[in-house]
């Protein structure tokens, strides 16, 4: 939603029904996991 659809944190929070802080932490965690997985495959 953030990187492909370009929604802001507030828009994502509205869409998923979660606080903005939760959106931020989930996004950071997801990106961290993705970086680790991609790093392991490289």
């Amino acid at each position: 939603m953030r990187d492909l659809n370009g929604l802001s944190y507030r828009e994502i929070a509205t869409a998923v029904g979660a606080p903005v802080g939760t959106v931020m932490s989930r996004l950071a965690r997801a990106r961290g996991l993705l970086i680790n997985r991609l790093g392991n495959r490289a």
Partner: protein
Amino acid sequence: MNDALDNPTLLLHAALDGELDAVGMMEIEAKLAADPDQAAEYARLVALRDAVRARIPREPAPDALRARVISVVQKTSGQAPQTVPRRLKLLGAPYRSLAASLMVGIVLGAGAFGLFGPMPADDDVQQAIVAGFIRGRLSGQPVDVATSDRHTVKPWLAGKISGATTVVDLAPEGFALVGGRIDVVGRTPVPTLVYQRREHQIALSELPERRNGALGAPRRETRDGYSLLHWADNGRLYMAVSDLPPAELDVFGAAFRQAAAVEREGAPKQ
């Protein structure tokens, strides 16, 4: 969100996503300059974002999500259904980008700018551009996305309006990119970039070129005490307004045109 902003990691992500205001962005850039580890982490995030965007095709938002967003905008702005906001800047800051997204969805759905009708007369366009500049200076928040990274500003704008906006890095020429925003001229959303030189700012708006419009050659005017420089290039009309001395605005215009030409040719910038 306030608690989240105490977390350096989340702050880094917020910077990447253009969620910080100008002051917050400047603080982050200072931290990145002083901390190689943070700078490396930020570079990894930028690389991931670019890779995701390059490799995964974008899909339109599902109808259910679109309807939900539209519903929220209508409730918060107190507007009747199916009404497009006339001036985004009149809405509360938290809903500005949301409303912009709604407007873009309608633009893209209609398939063309034609939905919005013709641009207003030259004089009205200039007045709107200068008014936007003054509003940005007075509010202290001249941009909706605050970052000196043009690779963040460009996709942010692309997510709000149809068509690509020319965004170039002019820091080597002494004009640092502050960020971007969407102005509304008449009924047309217009991408506007903000650059900084010393304590002065330049707001550069990119508009559809008029069929009988301005000459390609740069032309400078003064309006309400501000310098206004406009030119046509590659089928687009550019209008720069600034509180800079006129001669320096000319330098900015020349630097922008040169950098834009280099980018179009795909040649590496010197």
